[in-house]
């Protein structure tokens, strides 16, 4: 199975790298994930400015 074919529920049957890439791919497809990530970058820019 390629990582994208693996369901998150079946991860116990998958080895390390495939497991990690399956989880990462699932998270990256979630549009909600990009909101905190963008805000984190904004926060780092603000921190650089105030420090």
């Amino acid at each position: 199975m390629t990582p994208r074919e693996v369901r998150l529920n079946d991860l116990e049957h998958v080895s390390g790298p495939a497991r990690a890439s399956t989880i990462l791919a699932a998270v990256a497809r979630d549009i909600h994930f990009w909101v905190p990530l963008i805000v984190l970058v904004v926060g780092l820019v603000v921190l650089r400015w105030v420090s």
Partner: protein
Amino acid sequence: MGELAPVRQTAESAGPQAARIHSLQRLGVLCGVAAGAWLGAAEVPAKLVSAGLSPFLISFLMVLGVFLGRWCLPALARGTSDIRADVSKAPHLIIWAIVAGCLWSVANTLTVFAIRDLGLSIAFPLWNTNALIGILWGVLFFGELKKAGRARWTAVLGGAALMFIGGLILARVSASQVSSQVATRGIVAALGAGLLWGTMYIPYRKAYLSGMNPLSFVSFFTIGELGMMTVLAARYLGGLPELWRQVSAASSVQFWLLAAGFVWVIGDIFQQYAVKYVGVSRGIPLSNSNQLWGLLWGAVAFGEFRNWPHSAISGAVYGSILMALGMAAISFSVADKAEHDKWREAADREQTKYDIDPRFISSAMEGTAFHQSPRKRWPDVLLVGIATAFFLWTATRAHWPAMSLQWPAVYALLAIGLILLTAAAVSLWRMTHFN
């Protein structure tokens, strides 16, 4: 999608009864109130420390205390076996937890800069705008307040507005003159912290809609926290050797900052349960009552009111009353069945998106245990032992700060905090066994 339909039906049919929903929401409100008291008390140990330390060093030492607290308290309450079992059901939440931890660290460091430039009393209400950001994300992404009815919308938004206005009044009463350039920098830092902390509730809510236990979530959250804080401190203090040198040089204050982090963890764990059981839009305004508690500690325990004019004391009282009214309005607007069904829909979307076991989600929403893992005692004892030894070691090197305290007020506030802690912890145990 088609194959998931029967599964979703099963999850719905096993859904919580209305009475159980109501009880869990009352529990969430109690946790939110306890969170406010303990998050407010977290300022006390930090306040004992004299000025002159780098904001990055202060933040780093607090996060170290948070890290120790976030591993030993969950190990005590549920055990590492349950944490491992939880994560195996929703492994993607490790990434979400780490991102949330990074957001927390950057926000916490920004607050140290904001306090430095504006003072605690002005900076506090500015970063408490996180409640408004949290409400926005809760409504947009998780169906909170949908089908809630006009009365509940009014109570939650009106309550949040009252708390915000009360916060602004509290800020004004002790405001001192600061130069406009410094003020601008401080305001940007405080608002930036509010944005980051408000957005941090996206991962929180996602985790609890997905069935994750709050105690498991915070264990991974803190890896992001400590990792990001170490990178920031090393980057801005001039490298890891310089960070280590400054940490060693601050041996007399390490304990107080670690203790501040630990007390903060107690408040945050209650905040996590509040978010789980009443959602972001109610849980965060409730736990933002920490500003009120911070003011109480400052006014009555540290005697900050002694030299204040009568008008300033009146302002503080009015601001506090407004915050208390806002808190009461939100506390009495618990979600009904129709709104809870919208939460259930949001949980179903997470179940479909990440292919999570629907029974895992249902049991979490009902506040019951999904799995009973055989508990291995030795890792839990080891974790708690290491954390305790570290705290004791720093305590032996700590100096009692040269500061006069109003001890009767300290005892009274400690007693109230302990009563709230006991009430929330016992209720959580009785109703959910910390699930």
